């Protein structure tokens, strides 16, 4: 993998010559990313005639720009409407929406954009310079290691449900059980499908996402004439450029936070099959764990927006590494890119960096340029986009329902998914009104099937030997890290209690 200044400078110049294409692709990507149910993969598939007709360098510039922009766009609706554009931005709702309700929607959007940019750029830079070493990670991450990584995400159920642990755990395990609907991973026999053939592939995630977030949120928001609190409404009406600048300052006061959560995203993204949703939830869980004020998470704090957004975009870099280095796509969009590159006669894997290193490294240069472009195009828009929450809820709620239902239908094209969305909307509404955490439910639905698949795979490979889970050195290190992660909050709490009791007796 011969990296030289000449290759990098050539790629920068190539990307700058196609700046107009990057602007178009990132605009499409942000819009697509903000719409639940519409992903970058579908969009690139629709635009295949274009990507197949142009040179492979141009096609990659277009696809990579659109891909990273879709990761950034997901946070917009998470923050303003509590509706994640995709699984990777579901964790952003936890603190993004409370910030918007307080009238800090503009600052939250800026935090999201800056964290996405920093997370994306840092991980793209790391990928360029450490590509040969980072790529090896993919070889060490097997089913056993994935089980531990997924458990990191699942422990977030306990964290988000800390205000009512019992109800949170009930919601989480109900989510895990809902995630276990569908054909099993070994024999493909249907489980808990109620006889519906549409559920054989499992419960469609987008239907759950739109139901428990969008539909239930629309029903809840009818309680008030506005999404905003009275104070928040006043702040939002007077908001101007100052708030955008405040968001930028807030972001860069937490630069290290953006960097390390982005790196979490990069590492998880490298593992083929691991998605941005795992990265975002794990980053949020880790951010909360090491915070001095974990009790403030979920109330609308900047760290709660930065962590998932940075990880979500760090994951975008990670997703493409196995594609380029070993020829294995890390996600659906990477798989579509693989098709386009293969059509153009590009050989992926180590040979790519010998025959056409410019194309291999150029992917990450495109990411750098696309993020820089997006920062300059999105930041000025935050002032206007954030005003969306000023629309009265009797107008906003029906619009949310009408357009998110399209997202529930689009991925599979089944009317069944629309009815399922309405059922999950009703479940989400009851959960919210009775104190059952919908995020805990969603974590179970998203991560449950992945956990089951990896546990089964590990057992199958080892001949059903349960010791396989402690047989790998990398896995064992991760187990220790998980145990430490779980123990730290109790230890911190114990020390705080002891210090408080000492202070009281002194």
């Amino acid at each position, binding site marked *: 993998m011969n990296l030289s200044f000449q290759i990098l400078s050539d790629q920068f110049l190539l990307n700058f010559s196609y700046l107009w294409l990057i602007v178009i692709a990132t605009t499409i990507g942000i819009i697509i990313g903000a719409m639940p149910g*519409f992903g970058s993969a579908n*969009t690139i598939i*629709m635009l295949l005639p274009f990507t197949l007709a142009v040179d492979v360098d141009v096609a990659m510039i277009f696809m990579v720009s659109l891909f990273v922009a879709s990761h950034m766009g997901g946070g917009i609706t998470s923050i303003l409407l509590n509706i994640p554009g995709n699984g990777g931005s579901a964790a952003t709702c936890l603190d993004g929406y409370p910030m918007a309700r307080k009238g800090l929607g503009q600052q939250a959007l800026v935090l999201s954009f800056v964290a996405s940019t920093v997370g994306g750029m840092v991980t793209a830079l790391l990928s360029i310079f450490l590509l040969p070493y980072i790529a090896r990670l993919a070889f060490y991450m097997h089913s056993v290691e994935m089980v531990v990584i997924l458990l990191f995400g699942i422990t977030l159920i306990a964290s988000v449900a800390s205000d009512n642990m*019992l*109800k949170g*755990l*009930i919601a989480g*395990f*109900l989510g*895990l*059980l*809902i995630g*276990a*609907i569908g054909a*099993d991973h*070994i*024999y493909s*026999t*249907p*489980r*808990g*499908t109620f006889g519906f053939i549409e559920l054989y592939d499992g419960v469609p995630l987008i239907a759950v996402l739109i139901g428990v977030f969008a*539909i239930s949120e*629309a*029903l809840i928001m*009818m*309680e008030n004439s506005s999404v905003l609190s009275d104070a928040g409404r006043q702040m939002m009406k007077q908001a101007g450029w100052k708030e955008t600048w405040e968001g930028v300052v807030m972001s860069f006061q937490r630069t290290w936070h953006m960097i390390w959560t982005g790196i979490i995203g990069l590492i998880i993204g490298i593992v083929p099959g691991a998605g941005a949703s795992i990265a975002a939830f794990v980053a949020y869980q880790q951010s909360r764990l090491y915070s001095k004020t974990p009790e403030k998470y979920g109330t609308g704090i900047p760290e709660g927006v930065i962590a998932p957004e940075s990880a979500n975009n760090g994951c975008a870099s990670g997703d493409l590494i196995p594609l380029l280095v070993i020829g294995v796509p890390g996600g659906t969009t990477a798989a579509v890119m693989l098709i386009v590159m293969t059509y153009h006669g590009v050989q992926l894997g180590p040979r790519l960096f010998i025959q056409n290193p410019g194309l291999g490294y150029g992917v990450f240069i495109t990411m750098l340029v696309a993020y820089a472009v997006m920062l300059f195009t999105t930041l000025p828009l935050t002032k206007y986009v954030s005003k969306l929450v000023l629309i009265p809820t*009797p*107008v906003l*709620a*029906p*619009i949310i*329902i*009408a*357009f998110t*239902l*399209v997202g529930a*239908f*689009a991925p599979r*094209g089944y*009317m069944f998914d*629309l*009815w399922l969305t*309405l059922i999950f*909307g*009703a*479940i989400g509404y*009851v*959960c919210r*009104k*009775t*104190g*059952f955490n919908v995020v805990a439910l969603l974590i179970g639905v998203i991560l*449950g099937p992945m*956990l*089951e698949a990896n*546990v*089964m795979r590990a*057992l*199958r490979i080892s001949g059903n030997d349960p010791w396989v889970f402690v047989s790998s050195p990398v896995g064992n290190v991760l187990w220790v890290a998980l145990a430490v992660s779980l123990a730290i909050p109790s230890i911190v709490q114990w020390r705080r209690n002891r210090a408080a009791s000492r202070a009281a007796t002194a």
Partner: protein
Amino acid sequence: MNDDRNGKVATGADWIIPILGAGFATYYLISIKDLDWEAKVSGVFCAVVLFLLIGIFALRTVLGLLRGTHYIELRSLYESHKLALIRGSLFALTVASVAIIPWAGFTLSTFGFLFACFVWLQGMSARNAAITAGALAFAGYVLFILILRTSFPQGPFERLASALIGL
């Protein structure tokens, strides 16, 4: 539930999710009873833990009612008559709009849904509601059907537009 009365905890509506959960877990266990162990191990684990958690929840509630720290309250989902009417209308209109999609198509069902919501919930004049709902439904048609090629069932509007513009 969140609403407290003199420090007491309300319970009643918060039984809906545990009952649904227990019902679903029972059905799930029945549906997998004849499968191989690999196919049911994770489901059995989740269902057992769910039953255990619901059991603890039930025990806590019963003890709370006996000790007087809990009281039965079923109004948290209903709240006020006006709010229940608004929410019920919104959900009923949503269900109706989904039900008519196979015949009316995306554009007309969206227009009808938005128009009814704007008039009924926001109290907009019929003219303004028609203009706003029409503009939004048409924008949705252009974005989702024409550009993104979402395969929604075709309705009279989509068929007419297709015949006129050939797209």
